[in-house]
């Protein structure tokens, strides 16, 4: 097991460490967070747009 905390790198990567987040809680992170996590793998198709402070009375 590699401990990322023990390592030092001149440039931090863009990949968030999600190894020990239970899957049930991963799902709850939502598309915004997941979109950032996988953005480098799917650079040309970002996650579905999440409305910013969107109108509450429609869905």
């Amino acid at each position, binding site marked *: 097991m590699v401990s990322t905390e023990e390592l030092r790198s001149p440039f931090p990567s863009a990949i968030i460490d*999600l*190894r020990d987040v239970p899957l049930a*809680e991963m799902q709850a992170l939502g598309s*915004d967070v997941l979109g950032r996590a996988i953005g480098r793998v799917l650079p040309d198709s970002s996650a579905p747009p999440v409305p910013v402070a969107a109108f509450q009375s429609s869905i």
Partner: protein
Amino acid sequence: MDGRVFMPADQFVLKVNSRCDLACDHCYVYESADQSWHGRPIAVSPEVVSRTAQRIAEHVKTHELDSVEVVLHGGEPLLCGVAGLRRILGELAAALGGLCRLDLRVHTNGVLLTEKFCELFDAHGVHVGVSLDGDRAANDRHRRYRDGRSSYDQAVRAVELLGTDRFRHLYAGLLCTIDVANDPIAVYESLLRLSPPRVDFLLPHATWDSPPVRTAASGTDYADWLIEIFDRWQADGNPVGIRTFDSIIATLAGGQSSTEALGLAPVAMVVIETDGTYEQADSLKVTYAGAPETGLDVFRHSLDTVIEHPGVAARQRGLASLSATCRQCPVVTSCGGGMYAHRYREGSQFDNPSVYCGDLIKLIEHVKDTLPHVTPALRRATHVISDGAFAELAAGLGGAEAIGQLTQAQRSLRRALLTAVYHEGVSAPAVPVAVRERMRGAWQVLAMSGGDRLAVPRALGALDSVLGHPYLRAWAVRCLERLRRVAGDGYAGGDGQISGAGGDGRGSGVSLAADLGHLGAIAAAVAIRGQARARVAVPVTSGAVHLPGLGRLVVEPVAAESAAVLPPGADARWALVEVDADWVRVRVGANGVRLPRPSLLAGEPCRVEPCEADGTVAVSSDGLLSSHGLSARWEPVRVLAAPGIRVALEDTDPYRDCHQWQAAPRLTDAEFARWQNCFALAWREIQANHGAYGPALAAGLGVLTPMVATSAGQDVGSAARQAFGALAAALPAGPVTMALLLIQEFQHVKLGAVLDLFDLCDPADKRLYKAPWRAESKPLEWLLQGAYAQLAVSEFWRARARLGEDDQARAARRYERSRARTAAAIAMLAGSGSLTPLGERVADQMRKAISAERLS
């Protein structure tokens, strides 16, 4: 500096009708302090629609917006009639269709919704949300006609219409206004029965002057009510997106809220009334008469002017706009002070916490306590590569430690991708309901038995093992790309099975439904490895039920009768896989077979038996076991083994065909024996003569996929960016060539994983570069990949040339050619001016490595 970030509006609420056919006593439009609806035109006029569309178009051009959302709202928008809404939608499409992506929505009470409306909405891609407060008792508490009649049956009929295959892609979700007198679980369950893609529970609008109804001793009735649902939602494995909960979780993790009711994100919304006046959020109607007014209208004022209005500006200042109490609150980034209207008190106006402050704190703290991993998920370290490992990799090598660091980052990526497939799959309106249900069933198995933090280590190991399969990422990326392509394009295809390429083709004929259904296969594999009980639906693709990493059960239904009696969740193109302690049962249609689980885990050829109640069995000459209408043959994944290395020979996975050349069909035993023999000798060659590359291969190469040989008989090998840990090749003529293919292609695997972590080339450089070894020109990253692989090729031939064997002269020529090519490519990279600092470091290490190579 007032802390404001100017944000152009990208959401427009167009009030198309100011009246309603219901008389809900909790409606903020008609039952609030502001009664301005009395003086407004009933229906929006063509002039107002036209000017509104022009204003939005003007705003899109000024701010170069990629997309805008327009919500048709009321009152009740369907009172405009089909013809009225057709004119409005036509006007919006004409003004905006060519300018930007137009996300059209309508929110309705549903009672007037008909197929005609749905056909219109389908033609314009309008997503439909419906207000429904729960079951009949809950809904009838407020949502009644003026004469007191219930609206429940009409609303449910509307939702059911939206749930049909024909219109399912239009179904946006359900909005439920909370009444704490209702049973929260009954409300939750009743809404879930209508299979909404999304739900939200709205706090009833209230202010400090007109506070919400409370009866509980806790004083936090609304938090208590929502917490009951949240806990059940968690226990259910999040079967539907619930906007309030999703927003709290997202903000706890550092992301954005998706509702104005939570979070600190600036509001980018403008309301246009039926008379063309601009308003701030219409929820302000609950505060005082005239509160939403701006004094501006579409005929005289641009949308930029509206954004500059102090009332709108106040809602774009984030934390700075909140009361002193809120600014010091530990949960402020999640609650954002709550709904703006809910902060109102005469005198201090909006400079107060929300009237629901206690509820919001309790709910957010509960979510945080329940999901302890969420808050730190994005605040802790990202994956990094140590200096030493990076230096090794940059020089073209890298041992087990370096590969281990790359592998750990891939674990995070695969977990995120798997989750995204589920999250987007069950949320996509275009995905058929039955497929979503199957995905939910699979996710329950994954989340509850394979990945829960309370799971036993064995189960967690099973999840990691299955997620570690290289083609899981290829599958996930394929699903996400397809989901995003069909967004807005309607139905995603039937529950169909593979339709092309003779069952081992490149997968283009697999429906999205079958792709998404593969989540069930992943869940089944986790259950089998983790010794957990499970029951999941798995698509039959290429005539087989696939269990990733284990093998496939080739099934051939020989009797049409099997389709006549189907258990829920299964049909002729889906199998039901049941896992228990001893057996894995696979049912296709009415018939089934069982396989002993220990044999599956051991990768052994195993006997296929009929399920207990399925009667007589016969074994045909081709090895297929027939049990009534089902014949089946188990084909395990076989392993290539040599001292110090074990690699799965993957000739069953339906997503293995992601390489440059076509994947080969299942190998015969004799063909496998040839691969094993060649692989063992190739490994001996690597160990003996190219030892520096051995540790990385032993640590990182998990799968070798046979490919179809080219007609010219050339040696072909391939790595795929979306399949870390896998290589593909046609069986080479001899072990030396296989050794070269393994080393060369694994260079691409290593560098691809580094590129997942870091930018080595400037993505803005769109120039094409001609590599010294190819005729065509390609982007800089491709040149880097090629140079990195050629570095190893050069070293390989140098080592062969020094052996003094029969091919010494040929090896020396190849070495000189590869070395020259590599040096030239490295020079091109360095001279491009488009390497990042880290990319320059890689190029420098490569240059040093090639310079150090000497033939003697």
